[in-house]
């Protein structure tokens, strides 16, 4: 305590107006300290409000960043085009749609807003190495452009090249999780594994990407799409392709060109629905941001009610404090305090009170969020600077707003009445 006093008093030594405010802050802190329990109970409302702001914001922000990063990690300019079954007037499936390799090539050739394309064959495969057997591994059959399109690179060995794709070579690139599950180290590169009983040479390892929503992204195997189609001919009906726009702002243009080319090639009449679908991750990102904004503002509304309640608590206690210290106010006025000095003193006190409450709330909120993030399925916590500033700003604002009335009441007390007050 003595040290605290000493430090605070040193701060007051800073000359000028700072000193005056500093002095008011010290007076306020002394007053708050003198009524510890009362002060704590008073700011409980503010503490709870700010704790919930920080907890909720940090969790939604952490989650939002997580989703954003995942989607960015897919490659910001990437879209996936996939066949969609044609439906009849009553929604029944008429016939399977199909995207052919010539569709893909013609998009690649004729759409100038498209930079790269790659066919993609999806399959869940079984992988064997020695006595280890893994099932349900995501197999992707792509061409050599997979790396730049998906922004997902090999960091050991090499990726397959155009010649491998041309020849439908039995080569594969493994994600780190597959390596781990096979209980192998990086020396597996160059060795052979079996994918659905076919012998493949491991020529490279993909960089680790981590997991998303509990699903490990590194549990993946890439092979040339030609090889994949040879192994799983029935997947031809589901052949999809990656499309990379030339730039982020060219995504709408690329989309338009792609739709036009495919509709033309499939002979679709106006009014007929597309027989293919597009997965655009920026669209998802926007939707996600929208939902996040709505969620945040709804929460902000709820929180502001608790701040209001906290503010009323502060006003109540400040009124009590003013009444209790009427004589002190009289004395201060008799030794030269102007109305505005008294006003500032009590306003400072309520602002300090609410800001201290806000600071406690920030610490508690951060602690709670950190605690919550320890749960394995939780995302990393992030407390953005703006939320801390907002929380502190709001609590200080509450202090000013709800402290104003009591402070004004104190300021206009007549010194004679105040000195006679019992």
């Amino acid at each position, binding site marked *: 305590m003595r040290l605290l006093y000493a430090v605070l008093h040193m701060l007051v030594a800073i000359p000028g107006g700072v000193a005056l405010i500093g002095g008011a802050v010290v007076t306020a802190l*002394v007053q708050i300290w003198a009524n510890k329990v009362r002060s704590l109970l008073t700011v409980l409302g503010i503490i709870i409000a700010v704790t919930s702001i920080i907890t909720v914001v940090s969790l939604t922000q952490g989650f939002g960043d997580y989703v954003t990063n995942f989607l960015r990690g897919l490659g910001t300019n990437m879209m996936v085009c996939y066949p969609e079954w044609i439906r009849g007037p009553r929604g029944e499936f008429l016939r399977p749609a199909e995207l052919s390799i010539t569709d893909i090539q013609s998009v690649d050739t004729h759409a100038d807003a498209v930079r790269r394309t790659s066919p993609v064959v999806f399959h869940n495969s079984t992988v064997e190495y020695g006595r280890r057997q893994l099932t349900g591994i995501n197999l992707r059959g792509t061409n050599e452009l997979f790396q730049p399109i998906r922004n997902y690179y090999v960091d050991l060995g090499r990726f397959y090249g155009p010649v491998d794709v041309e020849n439908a070579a039995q080569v594969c690139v493994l994600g780190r999780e597959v390596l781990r599950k096979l209980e192998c180290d990086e020396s597996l590169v160059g060795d052979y594994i079996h994918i659905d009983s076919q012998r493949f040479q491991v020529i490279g390892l993909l960089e680790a990407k981590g997991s998303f929503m509990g699903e490990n992204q590194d549990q993946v195997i890439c092979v040339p799409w030609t090889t994949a189609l040879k192994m799983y001919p029935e997947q031809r009906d589901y052949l999809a392709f990656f499309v990379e726009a030339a730039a982020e702002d060219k995504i709408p243009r690329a989309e338009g060109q792609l739709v036009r080319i495919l509709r033309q090639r499939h002979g679709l009449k106006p009014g007929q629905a597309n027989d293919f679908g597009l997965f655009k991750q920026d669209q998802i990102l926007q939707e996600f941001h929208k939902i996040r904004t709505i969620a945040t503002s709804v929460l902000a509304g709820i929180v502001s009610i608790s701040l209001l309640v906290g503010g009323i608590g502060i006003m109540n206690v400040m009124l009590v404090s003013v009444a209790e210290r009427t004589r002190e106010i009289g004395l201060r*006025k*008799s030794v*030269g305090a102007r109305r505005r000095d008294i006003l500032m003193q009590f306003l400072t006190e309520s602002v300090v009170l609410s800001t201290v409450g806000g600071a406690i709330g920030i610490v508690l909120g951060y602690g709670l969020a950190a605690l919550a993030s320890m749960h394995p399925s939780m995302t990393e916590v992030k407390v953005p600077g703006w939320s801390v500033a907002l929380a502190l700003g709001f609590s200080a604002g509450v202090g000013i707003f709800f402290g104003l009335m009591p402070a004004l009441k104190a300021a206009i007390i007549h010194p004679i009445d105040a000195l006679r007050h019992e």
Partner: protein
Amino acid sequence: MIATNDNAAQQVVIQLVDLHKIYRVGTELVHALRGVSLSIRKNEYVAIMGPSGSGKSTMLNILGCLDVPSDGAYLLAGQDVAKLSQSRLARVRGRQIGFVFQSFELLPRTTALKNVELPMTYTRARHRRRRALDGLSRVGLGDRIHHRPNQLSGGQKQRVAIARALAQQPDIILADEPTGNLDSVTGDEIMDIFDAVHADGQTIIIVTHEDHIAARCHRVIELKDGNVVRDEATGRAPDAARREASTAS
């Protein structure tokens, strides 16, 4: 009435001209002061006496710029305080007047030193700490500067209050029953301090109802029903002051 003495030591600090104060208590008008005129010169040592209801508290409030007269003029160091704004009045209270109260009115939980510094924080005076230390050693409390009021005796508290009043070298010290809450021995000690402060050239006005306190001052002004009924020099007054006082009344 107005002193025309060219001696600087004799200059008029307080001049009251036909001062009236009327209060409204409910529907009733109370005429607390009914035309008081007097002047007090620099380095005078004045006791204001009178029974309760005589108007002495009202006069003290007006002298201390805590209240303004209803009619008449109060010139403090040549300045008419009736014309001052609230904040100018606060400034006058801070710089030109030092208050000493019956119940000391020290800030609780605040050291003697900080209590003495308080008026200076409002006037933004420089060298607050040094001046506060000087003030405390003048009243003999140089060794108790870090004590809080609850660690001080009544006499010590009143000394802190006197040091606080002196800190800004005010034009006048206004003491309202300064010994009222003290035993007679401690009261005498406090009066010794007032004597010493007066000897240093300070103007002191003490409101009291105790004759032996008034007797230690150099001039006694007695009020009754809002009028001055007595204004005379005491036996302790130097000859010049006694002459002045007798000619004034």
